[in-house]
């Protein structure tokens, strides 16, 4: 086994570590702690956070890549180890090879037969045209009629295993947190639901395609799950690229005013005057041309896809800083008029120190709100961009690519609905959780809304 660290893997783990450190530092500030407590004291907040955490966990597991060592054929008498050209992730292993069971083409959820007729030989060896049986579904059944009972039985068994796993995961939390003032029960319930369905999916996918297969015969459920990493990474990395630009420029413009302000305002007006989608599309296409002309930069196909993905994150980040920049500029303008900044001037405190100690800590709430809000917007944008053809590489699983591949199939009879359903469900749950969470974060951190509640 040989670990492979893609650029996006490195970045996401870096991000997670820095976020953890950031929040650890924030703990010292009692006001921030109080506001977070407010977010988590609602059951909705707990549920939304647990769901997001589960998605992030999947994304992280799916970001631990390695290449399997190949067993050398006996004829090759060498100690050298060769590695599989295919990059696998820890998540792939955990799903029990869900992604390795390919069919020939479409098949419906829990189906035993393919969706399209083919020329096959029947039991007597005659050529007939019929629905061929699937290679990886219901092989263990002696008769197709047993299917319903078999699914039920396997589901119950999976559920029991799931509950056992829940007990293992939740009991220590319960022992640790039972006196807490936060509604942990909501989180535990959510965890239980997620764990049980995970166990159910993994165990049933050994015998059936739970969400069917797509045109290329790949398991739709697995693809939907692989879309999680793309969505989560895009949502966080693009914001990460955008933050430093927006914060630096916004704070400088609002604090120094004068020509600095003029330049920054000019920059973001110019940028936001360009239709965003065109700018993104053009940039992505240009990068695509660059990759096409320099194919030898990348060792494995996955690295090429990854480079394109990182580029997409950068492009989205660089083109979308103007909104946050504007907000931060306005807030900084307000803060620099306040007594404490004036007092700092009167004490002769240096500009860098004023910016670092007085201005930045007091715009953090805007950054935070934007971060959570943009996350869901970016996940949604990915689907649109992939549809337009300037999204992530088709070889990289993403919800946008799934929708793009399946949208024309709705007009077929009978309708092929499962690909869209899979993408829709996993995307909707993530975006909904993120949106609900961002609402709560904004309610807690936005001084305008908290003021309103105080006066009411």
């Amino acid at each position, binding site marked *: 086994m040989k670990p492979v660290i893609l650029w996006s893997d490195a970045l996401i783990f870096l991000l997670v570590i820095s976020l953890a450190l950031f929040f650890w530092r924030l703990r010292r500030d009692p006001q921030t702690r109080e506001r977070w407590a407010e977010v988590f004291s609602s059951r909705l907040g707990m549920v939304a956070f647990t769901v997001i955490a589960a998605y992030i966990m999947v994304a992280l597991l799916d970001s631990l890549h390695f290449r399997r060592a190949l067993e050398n054929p006996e004829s090759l008498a060498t100690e050298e180890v060769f590695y599989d050209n295919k990059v696998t992730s820890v998540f792939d292993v955990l799903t029990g090879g869900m992604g390795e069971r390919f069919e020939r083409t479409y098949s419906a959820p829990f189906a035993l037969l393919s969706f399209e007729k083919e020329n096959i030989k029947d039991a007597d060896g005659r050529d007939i045209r019929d629905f061929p049986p699937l290679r990886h579904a219901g092989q263990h059944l002696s008769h197709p009629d047993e299917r319903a009972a078999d699914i039920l039985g396997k589901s119950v068994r999976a559920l029991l295993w799931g509950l056992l796993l829940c007990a293992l995961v939740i009991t220590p939390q319960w022992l640790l947190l039972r006196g807490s003032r936060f509604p942990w029960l909501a989180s535990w319930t959510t965890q239980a639901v997620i764990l049980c369905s995970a166990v159910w999916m993994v165990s049933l996918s050994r015998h059936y395609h739970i969400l069917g297969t797509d045109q290329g015969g790949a398991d739709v459920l697995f693809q939907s799950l692989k879309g999680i990493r793309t969505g989560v990474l895009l949502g966080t990395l693009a914001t990460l690229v955008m933050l430093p630009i927006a914060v630096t420029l916004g704070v400088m413009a609002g604090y120094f005013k004068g020509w600095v302000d003029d330049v920054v305002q000019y920059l973001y007006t110019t940028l936001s005057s360009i239709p965003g989608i065109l700018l993104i599309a053009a*940039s992505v296409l240009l990068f695509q*041309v660059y990759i096409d002309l320099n194919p030898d930069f990348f060792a494995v196909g996955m690295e090429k896809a990854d480079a394109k993905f990182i580029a997409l994150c950068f492009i989205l980040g660089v083109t979308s800083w103007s909104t946050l920049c504007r907000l931060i500029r306005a807030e900084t303008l307000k803060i620099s008029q306040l007594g404490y900044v004036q007092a700092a001037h009167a004490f002769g405190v240096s500009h860098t120190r004023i910016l670092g100690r007085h201005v930045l800590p007091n715009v953090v709430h805007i950054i935070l709100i934007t971060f959570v809000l943009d996350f*869901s917007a970016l996940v*949604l944008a990915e689907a649109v961009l992939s549809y337009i053809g300037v999204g992530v590489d088709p070889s990289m699983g993403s919800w946008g690519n799934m*929708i793009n591949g399946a949208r024309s199939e709705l007009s077929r009879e009978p309708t092929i609905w499962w690909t869209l359903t899979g993408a829709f469900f996993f995307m909707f749950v993530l975006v909904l959780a993120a949106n609900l969470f961002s609402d709560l974060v904004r309610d807690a951190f936005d001084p305008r809304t908290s003021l309103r509640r105080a006066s009411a």
Partner: protein
Amino acid sequence: MFAYIVRRLIYAIPILVGVNLLTFTLFFVVNSPDDMAASQLGDKYVTPEAIENWKQKNGYDKPLFLNPDAAGVAQITDTIFFDKSVRLFAFDFGRSESGRDITTDVATRMWPSLAVALPTFLVGIGVNICVALMVVMFRGTRLDRGAVFVFVALMSISYLFYIIGGQFLVAKTWRLVPISGFHTEGQVWKFLILPVLVGVVAGIGAGARWYRTLFLEEANQDYVRTARAKGCSELSILFRHILPNALIPILTGVVVLIPSLFMGSLLIESFFGIPGLGSYMLDAINSQDFAIVRSMVFIGSILYIIGLLLTDISYTWADPRVRLS
């Protein structure tokens, strides 16, 4: 007022120059004409001669900024920058890579775009305001909280699903209208009704939620308490005091979008086969026709700047407190 508008228009010039420089850098410096030729011609035919031919045919065989071979003013005018970017200011968009006149294309294609975008915009605002008002009437109750949850849920659905779902239900299952297409003669509305419907429904979540916050913000103002102290009923407070005040941020927030309605919607137009500017852009992106993309970027930024100007003007119109200077 007049001086203000003139001044704003003068301010727009550096912005347009900036847009131009940026696109020029993107298309000609980051990506040289040679790269463009290579990708346009495809892998098979890439020979140095073919590239030169292609560049000559499309007018990319000149130097970027300064032409030392030419004399006088031509040193500057006989360059790619002048040909491809400066000419945009005179609304001379030139020809697309496939040889069509972009100006004509834009002029014919903006009307179908407008035919879809304008009704979507107007109906959308109306529907959102009505929904938000209804919710605000029940502020603080379970109904209000439930509605906010529904708004957030609606916001969390990708635009693509609204379109796909709309086409599947209305056009395919119920067979009420054609799935896609567009004719200028006869029953145009038949082709418009579904895209408009999808556009409006997709916007409810975000729109109504935003308007609700605006209404609530106004409902907490002091003058509302004064109106109550006068003996106004809750309903008349909502319509006579809160609504006119909340319309100011609503109006000024949406006015900036009005000019951009000409650009149409990329997704709606491509799904419903409407021959507008949105699908024009999408086709250009897919065929990597950078001449069109460049022109559309320019048009888009001009419309945005007009939108900003209209926003300022609409402020003075809607809010007696604001005077332009």
